[in-house]
């Protein structure tokens, strides 16, 4: 996995709460057998609306999505994370993420930065008033920064220590686990014989 230390990019305001994974990428776009090419499905229904933020030229090239609470609810599809990444997003900022989405983000290298409600409001106001404004998300110091002077926003974000460490180091989970192979093998000797098997 690619390392993630810090990222600065144009902030894109998504003024919605409960953005479920069917909105992030509808099921009909889940049929690919690769990890790439899902950008076409990203927010597919909303992108039909010319007023949708991703259709606004001012936010072209945006890489930091700022969304309302309960982002990524619903299905376990990691395709939602891939679609955001394939489109060019590196970070999603929200006051609350659904568990599976947050887990998938950590595995795939998309930073899910959880901030206070008020920070999202202030970021929205700033990047809507001045489209193209960049947001810096620093994983090392767990801070999110944007704007200058009176508009300056600087606040901390939450991410669990283990995911932060893995992202900073760019480590692969499976390699880490396979280094505990002895523990797994020894656990297996203790499993009751009546536990079901498929073969």
């Amino acid at each position: 996995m690619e390392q993630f230390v810090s990222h600065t990019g144009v902030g894109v305001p998504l003024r919605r709460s409960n953005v479920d994974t069917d909105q992030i990428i509808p099921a009909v776009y889940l049929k690919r057998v690769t990890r790439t090419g899902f950008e076409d499905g990203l927010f597919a229904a909303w992108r039909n609306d010319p007023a949708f933020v991703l259709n606004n030229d001012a936010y072209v090239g945006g890489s930091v999505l700022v969304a309302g609470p309960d982002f990524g609810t619903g299905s376990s599809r990691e395709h939602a994370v891939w679609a955001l990444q394939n489109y060019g997003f590196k970070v999603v900022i929200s006051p609350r993420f659904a568990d599976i989405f947050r887990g998938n983000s950590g595995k795939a290298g998309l930073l899910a930065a959880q901030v206070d409600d008020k920070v999202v409001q202030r970021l929205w106001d700033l990047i809507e008033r001045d489209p193209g404004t960049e947001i810096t998300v620093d994983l090392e110091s767990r801070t999110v920064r944007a704007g200058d002077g009176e508009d300056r926003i600087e606040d901390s974000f939450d991410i669990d220590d283990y995911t932060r460490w893995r992202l900073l180091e760019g480590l692969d989970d499976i390699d880490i686990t396979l280094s505990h192979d002895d523990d797994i093998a020894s656990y297996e000797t203790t499993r009751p014989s009546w536990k079901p098997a498929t073969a």
Partner: protein
Amino acid sequence: MGRTLAEKVWKEHVVRSREGEPDLLYIDLHLIHEVTSPQAFDGLRLSDRRVRRPDLTLATEDHNVPTVDWDKPIADPVSRTQVETLRRNCEEFGVRLHPLGDIEQGIVHVVGPQLGLTQPGMTIVCGDSHTSTHGAFGALAFGIGTSEVEHVLATQTLMQAKPKTMAVTVNGSLAAGVTAKDLVLTLIAHTGTGGGQGYVVEYRGPAIEELSMEGRMTVCNMSIEWGAKAGLVAPDQTTFDYIEGRAEAPKGDDWAAAVAHWKSLRTDDDALFDDEIVLDASEMTPFVTWGTNPGQGVPLSASVPSPSDFDEPADALSAEKALTYMGLEGGMPMRDIKVDTVFVGSCTNGRIEDLRLAAEIVQGRHVAPDTRLLVVPGSVRVRLQAEDEGLDIVFKEAGGEWRGAGCSMCLGMNPDQLAPQERSASTSNRNFEGRQGKGGRTHLVSVPVAAATAIRGTLSSPADLEPVQEG
């Protein structure tokens, strides 16, 4: 201090535990399907890794499969490629697969319990959020993403931070005609879609104990819709009776040993939950959604809410957007909402008891002129059982469509989709925008409400139906 059921199951599966790191948990059963597994198998190939325990892995085809002409090649080439990729991967890595046409094929969460593979105290994962269904047996079961699917394939373990625990205690008894689905929809409207976030939930209390295994599966299935990591019910005699004799259930001495252990899987009297919700089942009535998330629901007897009914500005805005999408006005009685398509099926309500209940209501009646009734059994076994009981004839004589097994219109990955602005009453689990087809409008309902709605053409309960004319 005592421990909760979830804590007991967790502890039994810890392979490795270190301060400051997630626990490494052993996985007893890994279920896979065609949509969330191809990239995981690719990952194995790229790193030259094998499936560690193919004997604890089971695959079925469900999300993409057609519910008509299932004996012919899948018409959609992209769906076909995905299904064929699963077949190739299972062959290459030695995983047991129940493909289209096999008698054990069906929705992954119907197949596991039906085979007797889902048992109390197990850890069960699948690349599908409705894996929580298996919690009905007292198993710790949850959905995972594709990277985690690859991790389980390679190691038979998962790294997991220990979640908090919550009790949902449901006192009283459900009234006649009120189902497990109404119970869970009522709960989700109470908590909102994020209310369970970070928790493993134990459903308990008299109303839960009175539910059949299929009813318990319906409740646990929708745990994810209020954000819970997993939902479970302590195993009891109802659980043991359901499992005994199934193909993969323990036999002979193994059965006795297993049951002895399963009986220990109860929350200790002095155990503490991090949180508790208490509900009264006797106050519950048929419950339906009006909006675009499963928390936006009201009793069927109520009216569509207006944005101004909500105190929180965010909720009001969310309601306004939902009403626009759904094409509804605040104040309109729910019972006046006209429905185009009724879908009975899914991992929430696609089991034999669901089909029996629907058939009982539809029997001797006819589907409303402008309404379509689609009945999709959760598995081939459920279909064959229903046909054995003549339920297919009941649906067909009433003007309904009887289909083959699969996820079908729950998420519309196959051709079973709503058209733009088409409105459904659906026994499935999600009413998100476009979930059942681009622009489609979904109302989540129980099986009795679905069946009565098919007959009247507007959201209804069986109590609204004219008595069947004899002779």
